[in-house]
């Protein structure tokens, strides 16, 4: 985790102006108390909607879009590409930048804060495409736009696949 914070902070410090940083900031955190995280509310918003009612049958299968930790993932699952739900496939680099969401784990009935980090630096994997649009926003809310290539700070902006990394419990 140290590594994650370190690289994130360094990356932001090095690569972005204060202004741009702001846009990304919403991704991670909204106040000094570390609560609420912006995307956390997406779960609340989505509750009681039709979206929540459908699917989610394979919540324990990390090779499917329904895996609990993938509740707002968009792209090729690294799990299907030689990686893991929170590990890049060989030869791909975890992006130092990402966006954060909250997913409910039915196994322990807790809400986990997860970081959606793209693996970058090789051509598109092409396997297990998920397009979960729950809470997905247009590009003017970049931090919630999943169509964006989230490889800022990676060696190249070439997108390979998507992971979901547990950051902590909400």
């Amino acid at each position, binding site marked *: 985790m140290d590594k994650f914070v370190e690289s994130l902070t360094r990356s932001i410090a090095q690569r972005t102006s204060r202004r*741009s*940083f702001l846009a990304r900031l919403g991704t991670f955190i909204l106040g000094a108390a570390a609560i609420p995280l912006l995307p956390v509310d997406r779960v609340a918003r989505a509750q009681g909607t039709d979206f929540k009612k459908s699917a989610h049958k394979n919540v324990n299968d990390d090779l499917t879009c329904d895996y609990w930790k993938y509740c707002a993932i968009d792209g090729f699952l690294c799990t299907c590409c030689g990686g893991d739900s929170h590990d890049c496939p060989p030869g791909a680099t975890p992006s130092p930048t990402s966006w954060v969401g909250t997913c409910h784990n039915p196994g322990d009935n807790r809400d986990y804060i997860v970081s959606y980090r793209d693996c970058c630096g090789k051509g598109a994997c092409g396997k297990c495409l998920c397009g979960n649009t729950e*809470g997905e926003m247009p*590009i*003017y809310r970049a931090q919630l736009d999943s169509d*964006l290539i989230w490889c800022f700070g990676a060696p*190249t902006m*070439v997108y390979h696949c998507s992971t979901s990394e547990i950051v902590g419990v909400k």
Partner: protein
Amino acid sequence: MAEYSFASVVLMLIKRIEIVAMLAVAILLLVGAPSARAQLPADQMTTLTLPDPKPNWVYIMDLQFPVNMLQKIWIIDGETRKLLGTVFGGYEANFEISPDHREMYMIDTYYSRGWRGDRTDVVTIFDAHTTNVLGEIALPPKRLLIVPKRNTTSITPDGRFLLVANMTPATSVSIVDLKGRKFLGEIETPGCAQVAATGNRQFFSMCADGSMLTVQFDDSGKQIAKSQSKPLFDPNTDPMFDQPAVVGNKAYFVSYHGKVLPVDFSGPEAAAQPSWSLVDDKDVAQKWRPGGWQTVTYQAKSGILYALMHQGGEWTHKQFGTEVWAFNAQTHARVQRIKLKTPGYSIRVSNADKPILFDMSLLPSKLETYSAPDGKFLGEYDDIGSPFLLYGP
């Protein structure tokens, strides 16, 4: 088989004979001698060129999924549904056509080794008739890399400037002088993304809080005025899609829930006009809402706005549309409901006298044409890769 073996022997025998002259003579003999009895003349092989673009042509951006790094434009005549030609690009490419229809532009990113290596962002200039490459204009390697959307690039009505949205993730707009064939500079657009020209020296970007940033610049590409409006909508309750229908200095935004927000960009600051709704209470009860990729298109001649509609719940904003609804943009009356043969992902209406409504579906990969606004199905063109965007001349 006998002659064939003989032929091989001949081939072996002549291995060491100087032969270029002989070949020329032989081919002349070949072409000349039997021509007396030929029914069909010899073909004269050439490269075709395109005529001037017609209003019912359509240009389709194909991602070539899952590769995505060698995108393609299909140029199709909407009336004959015939493929006229192709243009190629790179990674997360954008496409523009000059207002005088003489040139086409691909704005994209290449890596020196395809999927890795050094990044080059570049505008490639194509002759609109030959589709030959006329030149390149280098860009700072900062392009907004996103699954291609309209308004990631834009061209001024006079064709002089190409505007390219950047994100590093700091946001800015690169100003390119198309006549001078050079990159002029960048204008920062903090907190706002994308770019759409609404005048010869003016563009707007959409901002995170629902406001609009209006920027004016001079001939050297320098910003001369910048004004951010108050929030014109609330992205938290009902976000506007980020690919509005932009016509002249006006843009029609459509929201996830079906609200229409016309915005006047003629002045130094964006001015919202009264909003109205695509859906009435009954439609809402039936869960009708807009969705897809290019969800809204406007025909200036008729003043009719078209929206791609589906039935779905919250966060179904990328669901394929089963119908296109046409509205009089003045009276807000729905003038037509067009049931699509194939649910669409993007729509576009041409600005022809007999306009065509293009419906593009991703799965299956297909373009369908309907007369507009009455919605009579005219025909289809299949197998256009993984198409995302529709452009017109």
